Protein backbone atom coordinates (compact mmCIF):
# COMPACT_ATOMS: atom_id res chain seq x y z
CA UNK A 1 0.00 0.00 0.00
CA UNK A 2 2.80 2.37 0.90
CA UNK A 3 4.64 1.41 -2.26
CA UNK A 4 1.56 2.18 -4.32
CA UNK A 5 1.09 5.58 -2.75
CA UNK A 6 4.71 6.48 -3.24
CA UNK A 7 4.73 5.36 -6.89
CA UNK A 8 1.58 7.34 -7.57
CA UNK A 9 3.07 10.43 -5.98
CA UNK A 10 6.21 10.14 -8.06
CA UNK A 11 4.28 9.71 -11.29
CA UNK A 12 2.03 12.67 -10.58
CA UNK A 13 5.01 14.86 -9.81
CA UNK A 14 6.69 13.89 -13.06
CA UNK A 15 3.55 14.70 -14.99
CA UNK A 16 2.80 18.06 -13.42
CA UNK A 17 6.14 19.62 -12.55
CA UNK A 18 8.72 21.29 -14.78
CA UNK A 19 12.38 20.61 -14.33
CA UNK A 20 12.81 23.88 -12.42
CA UNK A 21 10.12 22.96 -9.92
CA UNK A 22 11.71 19.59 -9.34
CA UNK A 23 15.08 21.20 -8.67
CA UNK A 24 13.55 23.64 -6.23
CA UNK A 25 12.16 20.87 -4.10
CA UNK A 26 15.25 20.08 -2.09
CA UNK A 27 13.82 16.95 -0.56
CA UNK A 28 13.32 15.29 -3.91
CA UNK A 29 16.72 16.35 -5.13
CA UNK A 30 18.24 14.53 -2.19
CA UNK A 31 16.07 11.52 -2.78
CA UNK A 32 17.59 10.88 -6.25
CA UNK A 33 14.40 9.96 -7.96
CA UNK A 34 15.90 8.00 -10.81
CA UNK A 35 17.61 5.54 -8.54
CA UNK A 36 14.60 5.13 -6.31
CA UNK A 37 12.31 4.61 -9.25
CA UNK A 38 14.58 1.90 -10.50
CA UNK A 39 14.52 0.25 -7.10
CA UNK A 40 10.75 0.45 -7.03
CA UNK A 41 10.54 -1.34 -10.31
CA UNK A 42 12.96 -3.96 -9.06
CA UNK A 43 11.02 -4.24 -5.81
CA UNK A 44 13.97 -3.28 -3.64
CA UNK A 45 12.68 0.07 -2.47
CA UNK A 46 11.40 0.47 1.02
CA UNK A 47 9.62 3.61 2.08
CA UNK A 48 10.11 2.78 5.76
CA UNK A 49 13.86 2.66 5.34
CA UNK A 50 13.81 5.97 3.48
CA UNK A 51 11.81 7.74 6.18
CA UNK A 52 14.03 6.43 8.97
CA UNK A 53 17.14 7.44 7.10
CA UNK A 54 15.86 10.99 6.61
CA UNK A 55 15.23 11.31 10.30
CA UNK A 56 18.89 10.97 10.95
CA UNK A 57 20.11 14.35 9.76
CA UNK A 58 17.50 16.22 7.63
CA UNK A 59 15.33 19.20 8.34
CA UNK A 60 12.16 17.23 8.18
CA UNK A 61 10.82 14.44 10.21
CA UNK A 62 11.94 15.66 13.60
CA UNK A 63 10.51 17.86 16.22
CA UNK A 64 11.84 21.31 16.54
CA UNK A 65 14.83 21.77 18.76
CA UNK A 66 15.92 24.86 20.71
CA UNK A 67 14.51 27.94 19.07
CA UNK A 68 17.33 29.94 17.56
CA UNK A 69 17.07 33.49 16.20
CA UNK A 70 17.32 33.87 12.50
CA UNK A 71 20.70 34.89 11.24
CA UNK A 72 20.88 38.51 10.10
CA UNK A 73 24.04 38.03 8.11
CA UNK A 74 23.95 36.22 4.87
CA UNK A 75 26.40 33.70 3.67
CA UNK A 76 29.35 35.14 1.83
CA UNK A 77 28.91 32.47 -0.78
CA UNK A 78 26.17 34.54 -2.36
CA UNK A 79 28.30 37.67 -2.56
CA UNK A 80 31.07 35.69 -4.20
CA UNK A 81 28.79 35.01 -7.14
CA UNK A 82 27.61 38.62 -7.35
CA UNK A 83 27.81 40.06 -10.87
CA UNK A 84 30.67 42.37 -11.66
CA UNK A 85 28.46 45.27 -12.68
CA UNK A 86 26.75 46.51 -9.51
CA UNK A 87 24.41 48.70 -11.50
CA UNK A 88 26.98 51.43 -12.06
CA UNK A 89 26.50 51.38 -15.80
CA UNK A 90 23.00 51.62 -17.16
CA UNK A 91 21.75 48.30 -18.39
CA UNK A 92 19.45 49.81 -20.93
CA UNK A 93 20.60 51.87 -23.84
CA UNK A 94 24.17 52.54 -24.84
CA UNK A 95 26.48 50.01 -26.35
CA UNK A 96 28.66 47.31 -24.91
CA UNK A 97 32.22 47.93 -25.83
CA UNK A 98 35.57 47.25 -24.29
CA UNK A 99 38.04 49.99 -23.46
CA UNK A 100 40.39 48.92 -26.23
CA UNK A 101 37.62 48.87 -28.79
CA UNK A 102 36.46 52.32 -27.76
CA UNK A 103 39.94 53.79 -27.94
CA UNK A 104 40.54 52.22 -31.31
CA UNK A 105 37.23 53.50 -32.65
CA UNK A 106 37.24 57.02 -31.30
CA UNK A 107 40.93 57.81 -31.13
CA UNK A 108 42.56 60.46 -29.00
CA UNK A 109 39.98 62.78 -27.42
CA UNK A 110 40.24 66.50 -27.42
CA UNK A 111 39.38 66.66 -23.78
CA UNK A 112 38.53 64.23 -21.02
CA UNK A 113 36.15 65.76 -18.54
CA UNK A 114 35.72 64.04 -15.20
CA UNK A 115 32.22 64.03 -13.83
CA UNK A 116 30.72 62.51 -10.78
CA UNK A 117 27.32 61.11 -10.48
CA UNK A 118 25.28 58.52 -8.69
CA UNK A 119 23.88 55.30 -9.93
CA UNK A 120 20.41 53.92 -9.36
CA UNK A 121 21.50 52.52 -6.00
CA UNK A 122 22.72 55.93 -4.87
CA UNK A 123 26.39 55.07 -4.90
CA UNK A 124 28.82 57.64 -6.26
CA UNK A 125 30.22 56.92 -9.68
CA UNK A 126 33.07 58.64 -11.48
CA UNK A 127 32.62 59.28 -15.17
CA UNK A 128 35.32 60.26 -17.65
CA UNK A 129 33.54 62.01 -20.45
CA UNK A 130 35.59 61.95 -23.64
CA UNK A 131 34.96 64.99 -25.85
CA UNK A 132 35.73 64.92 -29.54
CA UNK A 133 33.92 68.13 -30.45
CA UNK A 134 30.93 68.66 -32.58
CA UNK A 135 27.26 68.02 -32.08
CA UNK A 136 27.79 64.54 -30.70
CA UNK A 137 29.78 65.92 -27.77
CA UNK A 138 26.95 68.28 -26.99
CA UNK A 139 24.52 65.38 -27.12
CA UNK A 140 26.71 63.36 -24.81
CA UNK A 141 26.82 66.22 -22.35
CA UNK A 142 23.06 66.42 -22.54
CA UNK A 143 22.73 62.73 -21.74
CA UNK A 144 25.09 63.08 -18.80
CA UNK A 145 23.31 66.13 -17.47
CA UNK A 146 19.93 64.52 -17.98
CA UNK A 147 18.75 67.55 -19.89
CA UNK A 148 19.31 69.00 -23.34
CA UNK A 149 18.21 72.04 -25.31
CA UNK A 150 14.83 71.75 -27.02
CA UNK A 151 16.31 72.18 -30.47
CA UNK A 152 18.50 69.12 -29.92
CA UNK A 153 15.55 66.81 -29.40
CA UNK A 154 14.83 66.18 -33.07
CA UNK A 155 18.47 65.78 -34.25
CA UNK A 156 19.17 63.46 -31.33
CA UNK A 157 16.85 60.91 -32.94
CA UNK A 158 19.43 60.42 -35.66
CA UNK A 159 22.20 59.63 -33.22
CA UNK A 160 22.87 56.55 -31.15
CA UNK A 161 23.13 56.52 -27.41
CA UNK A 162 26.47 57.29 -25.71
CA UNK A 163 28.92 54.46 -25.23
CA UNK A 164 29.73 53.50 -21.67
CA UNK A 165 32.88 51.56 -20.92
CA UNK A 166 33.44 50.32 -17.43
CA UNK A 167 37.03 50.29 -16.33
CA UNK A 168 38.74 48.12 -13.80
CA UNK A 169 39.05 50.86 -11.21
CA UNK A 170 35.31 51.37 -11.11
CA UNK A 171 35.20 54.52 -13.18
CA UNK A 172 33.25 54.70 -16.41
CA UNK A 173 34.49 56.12 -19.69
CA UNK A 174 31.78 57.82 -21.69
CA UNK A 175 32.17 58.17 -25.44
CA UNK A 176 29.95 60.32 -27.66
CA UNK A 177 27.06 58.95 -29.70
CA UNK A 178 27.52 58.35 -33.40
CA UNK A 179 25.37 59.35 -36.31
CA UNK A 180 23.03 56.58 -37.43
CA UNK A 181 22.55 56.59 -41.17
CA UNK A 182 19.97 53.85 -40.92
CA UNK A 183 17.70 56.01 -38.80
CA UNK A 184 18.09 58.88 -41.22
CA UNK A 185 17.10 56.79 -44.22
CA UNK A 186 14.20 55.28 -42.34
CA UNK A 187 12.86 58.69 -41.37
CA UNK A 188 13.31 59.97 -44.91
CA UNK A 189 11.46 56.99 -46.36
CA UNK A 190 8.57 57.40 -43.94
CA UNK A 191 8.38 61.12 -44.65
CA UNK A 192 8.44 60.47 -48.40
CA UNK A 193 5.60 57.97 -48.12
CA UNK A 194 3.50 60.40 -46.10
CA UNK A 195 4.17 63.23 -48.51
CA UNK A 196 3.35 60.98 -51.47
CA UNK A 197 -0.03 60.02 -50.01
CA UNK A 198 -0.85 63.60 -49.16
CA UNK A 199 0.06 64.90 -52.62
CA UNK A 200 -1.75 62.06 -54.38
CA UNK A 201 -4.88 62.71 -52.36
CA UNK A 202 -4.75 66.43 -53.07
CA UNK A 203 -3.96 65.85 -56.75
CA UNK A 204 -6.85 63.49 -57.25
CA UNK A 205 -9.20 65.76 -55.39
CA UNK A 206 -8.19 68.82 -57.42
CA UNK A 207 -8.38 66.83 -60.65
CA UNK A 208 -11.95 65.87 -59.94
CA UNK A 209 -12.89 69.44 -59.10
CA UNK A 210 -11.20 70.93 -62.17
CA UNK A 211 -12.62 68.40 -64.63
CA UNK A 212 -16.17 69.01 -63.52
CA UNK A 213 -15.88 72.77 -63.26
CA UNK A 214 -17.81 73.34 -66.48
CA UNK A 215 -20.46 70.73 -65.82
CA UNK A 216 -23.82 71.39 -64.23
CA UNK A 217 -23.38 68.15 -62.34
CA UNK A 218 -21.30 68.00 -59.19
Amino acid at each position, binding site marked *: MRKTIFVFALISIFMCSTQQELMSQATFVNLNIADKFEKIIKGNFSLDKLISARRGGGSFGRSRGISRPRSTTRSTARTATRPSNPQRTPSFGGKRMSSQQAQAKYGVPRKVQPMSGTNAAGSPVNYNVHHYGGFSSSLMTGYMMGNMAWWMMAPSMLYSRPVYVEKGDGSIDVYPPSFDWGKLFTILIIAAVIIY*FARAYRRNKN*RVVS*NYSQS*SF*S
Partner: protein
Amino acid sequence: MPTLSIESNGMLEKTAVYYNGSQISGIKELLVNIDEEGLFDCVIQYEGSDKKLYTKQIFTDTLTNVRTVPASFSEEEAQLLQLLTIESDGDVESSTLFLNEEPLDGVVSLYLHIKVDKNKDGISSIFKKKQYNLINETFKSEITFRNEDDSLETEDIFL
Protein backbone atom coordinates in the same frame (compact mmCIF):
# COMPACT_ATOMS: atom_id res chain seq x y z
CA MET B 1 -43.75 77.59 -70.49
CA PRO B 2 -40.61 76.22 -68.76
CA THR B 3 -37.69 75.31 -70.94
CA LEU B 4 -35.06 72.71 -70.17
CA SER B 5 -31.89 72.58 -72.27
CA ILE B 6 -29.07 70.08 -72.07
CA GLU B 7 -25.80 70.83 -73.83
CA SER B 8 -23.39 67.91 -73.95
CA ASN B 9 -21.07 65.72 -75.97
CA GLY B 10 -22.00 62.58 -74.09
CA MET B 11 -19.50 63.08 -71.30
CA LEU B 12 -20.53 64.24 -67.89
CA GLU B 13 -17.77 66.80 -67.50
CA LYS B 14 -18.90 68.48 -70.72
CA THR B 15 -22.59 68.62 -69.85
CA ALA B 16 -24.42 71.82 -68.98
CA VAL B 17 -28.09 72.06 -68.03
CA TYR B 18 -30.04 75.23 -68.58
CA TYR B 19 -33.39 76.04 -67.05
CA ASN B 20 -35.22 78.91 -68.66
CA GLY B 21 -31.97 80.05 -70.27
CA SER B 22 -29.80 80.02 -67.13
CA GLN B 23 -27.22 77.36 -66.48
CA ILE B 24 -27.78 75.64 -63.19
CA SER B 25 -25.27 73.79 -61.06
CA GLY B 26 -25.29 71.34 -58.21
CA ILE B 27 -27.34 68.78 -60.09
CA LYS B 28 -27.12 65.28 -58.71
CA GLU B 29 -29.53 63.47 -61.01
CA LEU B 30 -31.64 64.29 -64.04
CA LEU B 31 -34.30 61.99 -65.44
CA VAL B 32 -36.39 62.72 -68.51
CA ASN B 33 -38.58 59.90 -69.75
CA ILE B 34 -41.26 60.91 -72.24
CA ASP B 35 -43.06 58.82 -74.78
CA GLU B 36 -45.97 59.33 -77.10
CA GLU B 37 -48.19 57.03 -75.03
CA GLY B 38 -48.43 59.65 -72.34
CA LEU B 39 -45.52 58.73 -70.09
CA PHE B 40 -44.06 61.95 -68.72
CA ASP B 41 -41.40 61.66 -66.01
CA CYS B 42 -39.17 64.67 -65.71
CA VAL B 43 -37.43 64.81 -62.36
CA ILE B 44 -34.36 66.68 -61.22
CA GLN B 45 -32.43 66.33 -58.00
CA TYR B 46 -30.08 69.13 -57.09
CA GLU B 47 -28.26 70.66 -54.18
CA GLY B 48 -29.64 74.06 -53.45
CA SER B 49 -27.86 77.15 -52.30
CA ASP B 50 -28.68 76.13 -48.73
CA LYS B 51 -26.80 72.82 -49.20
CA LYS B 52 -30.05 70.87 -49.04
CA LEU B 53 -31.09 68.28 -51.58
CA TYR B 54 -34.21 69.03 -53.59
CA THR B 55 -36.13 66.68 -55.84
CA LYS B 56 -38.52 68.46 -58.15
CA GLN B 57 -40.66 67.93 -61.19
CA ILE B 58 -38.89 69.99 -63.81
CA PHE B 59 -41.88 71.38 -65.69
CA THR B 60 -44.53 71.52 -62.98
CA ASP B 61 -42.64 72.46 -59.82
CA THR B 62 -40.74 75.60 -59.00
CA LEU B 63 -37.01 74.98 -58.58
CA THR B 64 -36.41 76.70 -55.28
CA ASN B 65 -32.92 77.70 -54.18
CA VAL B 66 -31.41 76.42 -57.40
CA ARG B 67 -27.91 77.68 -58.02
CA THR B 68 -27.30 79.43 -61.30
CA VAL B 69 -23.87 80.01 -62.78
CA PRO B 70 -22.57 81.86 -65.82
CA ALA B 71 -22.41 79.88 -69.03
CA SER B 72 -19.44 77.51 -68.87
CA PHE B 73 -18.88 76.93 -72.54
CA SER B 74 -17.65 79.48 -75.02
CA GLU B 75 -19.05 79.81 -78.52
CA GLU B 76 -16.25 77.65 -79.91
CA GLU B 77 -16.78 74.94 -77.32
CA ALA B 78 -20.54 75.06 -77.84
CA GLN B 79 -20.06 74.30 -81.52
CA LEU B 80 -18.69 70.89 -80.54
CA LEU B 81 -21.66 70.07 -78.31
CA GLN B 82 -25.21 68.93 -78.99
CA LEU B 83 -28.03 71.03 -77.59
CA LEU B 84 -31.31 69.35 -76.69
CA THR B 85 -34.13 71.69 -75.68
CA ILE B 86 -37.46 70.61 -74.20
CA GLU B 87 -40.35 73.03 -73.95
CA SER B 88 -43.25 71.67 -71.98
CA ASP B 89 -45.80 72.42 -69.33
CA GLY B 90 -45.90 68.86 -68.00
CA ASP B 91 -47.97 67.25 -70.73
CA VAL B 92 -46.80 65.20 -73.69
CA GLU B 93 -49.22 66.87 -76.07
CA SER B 94 -47.76 70.31 -75.39
CA SER B 95 -44.10 69.24 -75.39
CA THR B 96 -41.76 70.35 -78.13
CA LEU B 97 -38.26 69.05 -78.67
CA PHE B 98 -35.41 70.90 -80.34
CA LEU B 99 -32.04 69.50 -81.28
CA ASN B 100 -29.45 72.16 -82.04
CA GLU B 101 -32.33 74.65 -82.24
CA GLU B 102 -34.09 72.62 -84.88
CA PRO B 103 -37.50 71.23 -83.99
CA LEU B 104 -37.93 67.48 -83.91
CA ASP B 105 -40.95 65.58 -85.05
CA GLY B 106 -41.86 61.92 -85.23
CA VAL B 107 -40.45 61.34 -81.76
CA VAL B 108 -41.72 58.13 -80.22
CA SER B 109 -39.82 58.29 -76.96
CA LEU B 110 -37.14 60.25 -75.22
CA TYR B 111 -35.07 58.78 -72.41
CA LEU B 112 -32.42 60.83 -70.64
CA HIS B 113 -30.84 59.78 -67.36
CA ILE B 114 -27.78 61.54 -65.96
CA LYS B 115 -26.56 60.85 -62.48
CA VAL B 116 -23.37 61.57 -60.64
CA ASP B 117 -22.26 60.09 -57.35
CA LYS B 118 -18.86 60.43 -55.77
CA ASN B 119 -17.25 57.12 -55.03
CA LYS B 120 -16.23 57.04 -51.39
CA ASP B 121 -13.48 54.50 -51.53
CA GLY B 122 -11.41 55.94 -48.76
CA ILE B 123 -7.78 54.98 -48.88
CA SER B 124 -8.06 53.19 -52.23
CA SER B 125 -9.14 56.39 -53.92
CA ILE B 126 -5.64 57.75 -53.33
CA PHE B 127 -4.19 55.14 -55.64
CA LYS B 128 -6.72 55.75 -58.42
CA LYS B 129 -5.11 58.11 -60.86
CA LYS B 130 -7.99 58.26 -63.32
CA GLN B 131 -10.56 60.66 -62.14
CA TYR B 132 -13.54 58.79 -63.44
CA ASN B 133 -12.87 56.02 -60.98
CA LEU B 134 -13.60 58.46 -58.23
CA ILE B 135 -17.10 59.27 -59.49
CA ASN B 136 -19.84 56.88 -60.39
CA GLU B 137 -21.49 58.21 -63.54
CA THR B 138 -24.70 57.34 -65.29
CA PHE B 139 -25.24 58.88 -68.67
CA LYS B 140 -27.91 57.42 -70.85
CA SER B 141 -29.55 59.38 -73.64
CA GLU B 142 -31.75 57.79 -76.27
CA ILE B 143 -34.35 59.13 -78.63
CA THR B 144 -36.58 56.97 -80.78
CA PHE B 145 -38.01 58.23 -84.04
CA ARG B 146 -40.69 56.80 -86.26
CA ASN B 147 -39.66 56.91 -89.87
CA GLU B 148 -41.92 57.45 -92.78
CA ASP B 149 -42.15 53.73 -93.32
CA ASP B 150 -43.32 53.31 -89.69
CA SER B 151 -40.05 51.77 -88.67
CA LEU B 152 -38.55 52.82 -85.40
CA GLU B 153 -35.04 54.10 -85.11
CA THR B 154 -33.24 54.74 -81.87
CA GLU B 155 -30.33 57.13 -81.69
CA ASP B 156 -28.05 58.49 -79.08
CA ILE B 157 -28.86 62.11 -78.56
CA PHE B 158 -25.43 63.57 -77.82
CA LEU B 159 -23.05 61.25 -79.68
